[in-house]
């Protein structure tokens, strides 16, 4: 399923990306900035019933489409379902640079990911709220050292200003192995897409 489109060396692949991190560190805001280039003061919970998607174009004629799963608040009481982690190719673990404890807890989320998600998952660590530099509690170097040690991509971001948001997702797009592209049901050869042909007349003659 790696390359559904291969015309003139253009390559397209889709990946499932999950967000993790403590509540209210700005996970949804980060994605809203990436997908819609907007910043919402309040969490908008009615967007879609599923997940957001956004594509990133890379230099070498590659296009990466992210299917981004937000926690929908289910992380708050540690109630994320196995479904959330399943077939995730990449993850963004978010902490808040103005909350020292939030980096510590993002380390727990990384461990959780390494335990529950597939091996080889690409993880990006995002120190969010970079616009609140004057309230910073987590030194950049401390987080970077941790990220290097744990093998994570690392960016400090601001969902408010947009700083480093695209850079974060683009870097993940570069790093995620193209051949591991997620086979979503509607793309999988053996899967059945319930939204296709639903109730329509059968193709061809059945006699």
């Amino acid at each position, binding site marked *: 399923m790696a390359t559904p489109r291969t015309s003139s060396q253009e390559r397209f692949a889709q990946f499932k990306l999950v967000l993790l991190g403590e509540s209210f560190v700005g996970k949804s805001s980060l994605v809203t900035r990436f997908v819609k280039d907007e910043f919402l003061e309040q969490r908008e919970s009615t967007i879609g019933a599923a997940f957001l998607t956004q594509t990133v174009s890379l230099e070498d004629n590659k296009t990466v489409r992210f299917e981004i799963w937000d926690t929908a608040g289910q992380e708050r009481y540690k109630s994320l379902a196995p479904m959330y982690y399943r077939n995730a190719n990449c993850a963004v673990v978010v902490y808040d640079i103005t909350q020292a404890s939030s980096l510590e807890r993002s380390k727990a989320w990384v461990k959780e990911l390494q335990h529950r998600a597939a091996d080889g998952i690409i993880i990006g660590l995002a120190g969010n709220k970079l616009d609140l530099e004057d309230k910073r509690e987590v030194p950049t170097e401390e987080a970077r050292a941790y990220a290097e040690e744990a093998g994570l991509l690392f960016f400090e971001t601001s969902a408010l200003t947009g700083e480093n948001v695209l850079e974060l997702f683009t870097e993940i797009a570069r790093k995620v192995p193209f051949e591991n592209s997620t086979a979503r049901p509607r793309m999988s050869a053996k899967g059945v897409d319930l939204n296709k042909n*639903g*109730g329509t007349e059968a193709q061809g003659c059945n006699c």
Partner: protein
Amino acid sequence: MSSFSASSVSKRGSIVPPLAEDPAFVDSCDVLICGTGIVESILAAALAWQGSNVAHLDRNSIYGDSSAVLNLDELPRWVDEVNYESAVFSNAKLYQPRPLDSKKYFVDLTPRVLFAKSDMLQLLLKSRVYKYLEFRSLTNFHTYENDSFEKVPASKQDIFTSQQMSPVVKRQLMKFIKFTVEWERLYNVWGPYRDKPVVEFMTKEFQLEQTQIDELVQSIGLCSSNDVATPVALHRIKRYLVSLETYGAFPVVYSMYGSASELSQGFCRSAAVGGAVYKLNATLTGLDVDSKTAIFNDGSKVRWSEKLVVSEAQITEQVRSKIPSSNPEYQINHLTVIVNMDCKEWFAEGEDAAIIVFPVGSLSSGNTKTVQAICYGAESGQVPPGQCIWYLSTVQGGATGQRDLEEALSKMEASILRESTEDFEFQVDQSDVIFTPSGDPVLSSVKLGKSMKDFVPEKKLTYLIKLSYNQKTSIPPLEESIKDVAKNDGDESPVIVTSGAPTEITYDGIVEQVKKIYAQIVGSDDDFFDVDFEDDEEDELTGMAKQNKKQEDDDHVPDFGDDMEL
């Protein structure tokens, strides 16, 4: 009837609790739901999108409640737990001869398949929950008869090409199938049999033979016997016929990694997106119905303003006396095994799943109810490659049901060994095969010893897991008259106890049950999932959704036309 206006939609998601190690759970809600089974999970999503403030908890660490899917670390714990205390499961036995890679296995406590044309499938589309799931097709329904598995001929071409039926039988069968796809309109034909067993109707009105009746009623219709009332059986046979050719030449699909539990996770996620609050590992330890307050083992105290909805399995001894009894009285016996063969012989081309039905009286145990088996290979995501999981079940309770299941299992074992024996790469002539008294061929290992040395371990059927258990439900099997599904003290009671699982390997009856409870809470089910989802791919999707809607209205009926010349 109680009708209320729930907390306004704009409030959703705007609660900002402090960033704490263990944030306190919400202390109030409109509807408190305990148990993340399929009924409760759909209800949570429906209510959340309707605008109700929903708090949804489960005493277990995983989603699914009595329909959970377990890995091999969780399975032994579950067995111990339900043998110690459970209102739903009993008599659980697990046999696992050697350690396995736990994470590669998913054992479904209540496996179900999804008919391509069914209310659950429509709801998955409407709610967008299908997007979280992966579906695969299942074509082959086998019926066990005369010591072998016959593929059920259900499509026109199957009937045409069948070598086993005489032209007369073929004609009668086509006549019956044509009648069944529009049976509701033809009351004059079936009306006189409305309270009579379907076997009587099919014999007298269509002169069908036992073999065809077994296949139609028990395999295609998945009825537990031929004694099911005529309209019930007709409805179920039609369910299969209209599902064919909806997405392709298969009647059912199944979700990967597990059935109801996967749907539960999807609906719970949908509910969470809609604003419901979730907490696992929360056991109901106290209840004050007068003040509408529930207390949980973690110390949370939650007040509900409208209803407490609780599943049977979530009711602990501490609160049992305060909740109307639902007294589950019907039984389902389960036997689940994982074998070290891929069982491709049973599956249709490109698929990895099949249903096998043992009709009433087909087993030497003299079974009076069918035994149904769903078999999944590795493509289901439930077992690693080269293995297969067989889920056998029967609505026959007690030791009798267990015997039926064991007997069916031995037939499946004999069958798969025999069928895969045909693939032997070395020469075997007739004199190498001896037959057991029951007619099963056995290779004479003395003569073949040398050439089979490398072969035997691969072909011998080994049980990697064998699990049996008994399940109780308050939903009666098909033979019994339909009782009210949600047990409660009427609409005024602040507590609703949901029924257990339908005695079914499909999702039929579940959406209906949820809608009833939904109507009980909000007054009517008019706005059940009446949500205008903002969507990323809205143009593309709205178009398709409309197409689907239109089709639903058309009530597509497959072509079993008059052009049949036999």
